[in-house]
């Protein structure tokens, strides 16, 4: 609980208008930030002396339940003080663009490529935004809910036996 307050007070000083929510989920303080300010917030969290979130644990994408928005989730870590927080930012699926975090943490490079590969999120300023895990010729973004898991071009599977 204290970590939530510490980070929240610091963020409110500079970005009060952009924080959409700040809550404690299980054991993580979670902040939802406006998409346009996410880069400044990340930079502030990394460079502030007391907060010092120098380690990017994870960067992943998600699609909201109503399938109209995409989101990017950041997990940050301050190792000397053992602070861990989560940041989320959401944006419309028709215009999925967010600023990149590679200038802050080089580790974000491949993580953002993976998010682009799976969800189609374009990261502005990314040095090399191409597909990383799927074949280069793929033109869909497979993790979106609208696309099925199985390969639809198979003709040797008889689904009448198993209800799918």
């Amino acid at each position, binding site marked *: 609980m204290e970590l939530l307050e510490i980070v929240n007070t610091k963020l409110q000083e500079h970005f009060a208008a952009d924080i959409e929510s700040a809550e404690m*989920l299980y054991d993580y303080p979670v902040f939802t930030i406006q998409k346009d300010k996410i880069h400044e917030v990340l930079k502030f969290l990394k460079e502030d002396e007391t907060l010092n979130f120098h380690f990017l644990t994870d960067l992943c994408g*998600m*699609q909201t339940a109503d399938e109209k928005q995409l989101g990017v989730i950041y997990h940050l870590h301050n*190792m000397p003080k*053992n602070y861990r927080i989560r940041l989320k930012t959401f944006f419309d699926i028709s215009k999925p663009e967010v600023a990149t975090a590679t200038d802050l943490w*080089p580790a974000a*490079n491949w993580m953002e490529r993976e998010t682009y590969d799976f969800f189609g999120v374009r990261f502005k300023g990314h040095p090399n935004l191409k597909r990383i895990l799927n*074949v280069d010729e793929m033109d869909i973004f497979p993790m979106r809910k609208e696309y099925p*898991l199985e390969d639809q071009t198979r003709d040797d599977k008889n689904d009448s036996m198993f209800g799918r």
Partner: protein
Amino acid sequence: MNKKETPYSINQEVIEEKEYSTLNLGPTHPATHGIFQNVLKMDGEIIHEATPTIGYIHRAFEKLAERRPYAQITPITDRLNYCSSPINNMGWYMTVEKLLGAKIPKRAEYHRVIIMELSRIADHIICNSVIGVDTGAMTGFLYIFQWREKIYEIFEEICGARLTTNIGRIGGFDKEWSKKTWDLIDTFLKEYPKGLKEFSNLLERNKIFMDRTVNCGPISAEMALSYSFVGPNLRAAGIDYDVRVMNPYSSYEDFEFTVPVGTQGDTYDRFMVRQHEMWQSLSIIEQAIKKMPEGPMHADLPDFFLPPKEQVYNNMEALIYHFKIVMGETDIPKGEVYHCVEGGNGELGFYLISDGGRTPFRLHFRRPCFIYYQAYPEMVKGIMLSDAILTMSSMNVIAGELDA
């Protein structure tokens, strides 16, 4: 462009240009343990630039996990870092237990610790012996792989499988371990130190091995942190970050162990960190056996813990519960949770978003290999090809974890 003044002509421009040859360290290569490709721009024997391509074994785990109920996701987690599958399984169980808010009895947690440390030893056996093979020392591999067979026997007694174990349950273990299991573990604890000592004597202070691996592919602590290195690779660079110490889970705070840390982050440091971690794992297992508390082997989670098999075969209610749990027809709370465990390669994280349905809404695996392999082109700039191969094998890149 250098303007060179020679006695024969004035203002003669000498353009220094190097011609680089391209070498494809292709997806199928004996030395890359796993399939990933590196297109190298070489200046003779020195590497100028490396462009990695991965995804040759992308099996769509995250999309597959959205289709499977919670009890059926464990086989997928097995195949992430398949050299140490039990750690992945336990990480998944702990994530679900965190979501449910379940408290696991100490006895089950100590058993989990034993399994996880055994699989950590198994993972480091593979990595270290393969570093030896890449320097040409095949003997170490043959000698120490015997001990991996002994660990397989222990896993087989508990869960029936050798490699992709699917071990345990959400909530603990299904039953007490048999006497044969404990005998095998005791024999292993008595005999393995001799085997590890033999392997150490072959390689640790071997002049040829040290000449090959010292200063080979070093990485500084700042660069390692900025590339989000974790695990033995980060500890070799000098940062003592171990999830078991920083965010203890499954009663790791009850055990005393040291976290080995290197200085330079080169191949020799990574090798030695893993060697010392194996000794520490042995000590943790001994402590767990000595301090084993009494109690039940599983938490009281009737909606998630499969009922015992004798009841499933004889009792109607147990059969229905078994079916419901495996098919995911139980009530799952909504929420999102992130849990990390110290895998063979470092912080393996599970980010689970549940919307109350029978399958996860979103499950993301924070795979350490995928994240730290990005630094490989930086690490091999300017070193020779054979050193680059050693760097890759000492980073313990497992293709299953790289691509998921």
